[in-house]
């Protein structure tokens, strides 16, 4: 009996100590982790909306939309996240959009796990820059109005389709030519 009591007590003490250490580390690191995540999000929003220096997050229907503002508080454009399924897993994209003219401002790949040297080239400027200035009325069809990366048609198509799907939703919320 004594033996069992000892087993339980030792295991319990170790668990409690472990819990305490974990709680302490969480307390120390959590604010920094939150700050990191927020900074990263803001960074990507500001990259896809040229001229913006601040961002504002709003919920419109089922989409989270980030509005980019400049120093005087003028709205420079909106951005939203698009997700597609690539060759090896999900691809997350931040898309900047100007609803007044109905054009894309820029895109940035937030995360992806495509094949290095092939599909991973979707991250490169050479691929992402082609979406700049693209009208929301275009088809986003790979090999027609979207240039695919050679040997990585699946990854390229995933990006184009993801943007198009989310863009169609956004256009319903913010009709082209309307106000921000």
């Amino acid at each position: 009996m004594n033996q069992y009591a000892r087993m339980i007590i030792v295991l319990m003490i170790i668990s409690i100590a472990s819990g305490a250490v974990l709680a302490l580390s969480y307390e120390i690191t959590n604010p920094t982790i939150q700050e990191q995540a927020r900074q990263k999000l803001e960074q990507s929003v500001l990259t896809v909306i040229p001229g913006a220096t601040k961002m504002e997050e709003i919920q419109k229907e089922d989409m989270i939309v980030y509005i980019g503002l400049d120093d005087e508080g003028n709205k420079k454009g909106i951005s939203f996240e698009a997700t597609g399924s690539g060759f090896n897993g999900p691809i997350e994209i931040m898309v900047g959009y100007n609803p007044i003219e109905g054009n894309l401002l820029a895109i940035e790949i937030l995360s992806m796990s495509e094949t290095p040297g092939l599909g991973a080239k979707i991250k490169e400027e050479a691929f992402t820059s082609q979406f700049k200035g693209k009208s929301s009325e275009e088809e986003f069809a790979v090999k027609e109005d979207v240039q695919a990366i050679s040997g990585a048609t699946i990854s390229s198509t995933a990006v184009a389709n993801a943007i198009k799907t989310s863009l169609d939703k956004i256009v319903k919320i913010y009709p082209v030519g309307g106000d921000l």
Partner: protein
Amino acid sequence: MDEYRLITTSSPHLHSGESISRIMFSVAIALLLPTFAGIYFFGFRALSLVIITSLAAVLTEAIFQKLRNKPITIADGSALVTGMLLALNLPPGLPYWMAVVGAVVAISLGKQIYGGLGANPFNPALIGRVFLMITFTTPMTTWINPIDGMTGATPLSLMKMEGISTDYTKLLLGNSGGSLGETSALLIIIGGLYLIYKGYVDWTIPASYLGSVALFVAILGQDPVFHLLSGGLMLGAFFMATDMVTTPLSKFGKVIFGIGAGVFTVLIRVYGGYPEGVSFSILLMNAFTPLINRFTVPKIYGEVKAR
């Protein structure tokens, strides 16, 4: 003590007069037909690619065996056949050094590392090709069109990406884009029939392989003749799926092997990410070969079911 020159071995004691080198050189002769086709369509570049790849394969075998202090067996011709087969599976415009890398990988990682001829579970030439395919994807999928010498798509990728079919006679004679030795279906069939006539190739594998491809393609509603004649299927069915070392021993096992390879080929061609699936499907079935052998042991005459 007296020296006895008697050698004791177990039966059988009959010898058919065949040897590895005779078989291998017959295969090499049969392979010359598609090689000539490649040289005719793609010119000097094809000839030099075949020579360089074969030399690299033979040299690798010699160096590897020397390093491991084993007898050097390059004279049996098996490294030569591997090198030729690999070359026939490469795009004619591939840089020479990449072909050499492929040959080194084929012989070292595909064959010698397992203990040499007879001990390799996978077809060495296909190991080399698949290694090159995943390592240098872009050069390995840059095809030269024999008519104008421009780069262009193979009949299979034209079919897959844009739904365009290619003329049967072009496919049969070899006047289409593709690997060096896979373009002329006709010459490959003649070479294959020669090997079947000599008895080095069992007709069951090519027959069941090609038959199942035709059948499954037809079930999926695509053109069976086009699929039979295009890509590396003929070369694979007659020269690579029939490798004695890496395929099942019994007739029934060979039929299973052929059908399995056929199903995988069609699945990859129709639904997969790559336009061509012959090399992958043969390698997959190579992996199944020990299992197939285990379940298709022929019944010994007079055998009674064990209780």
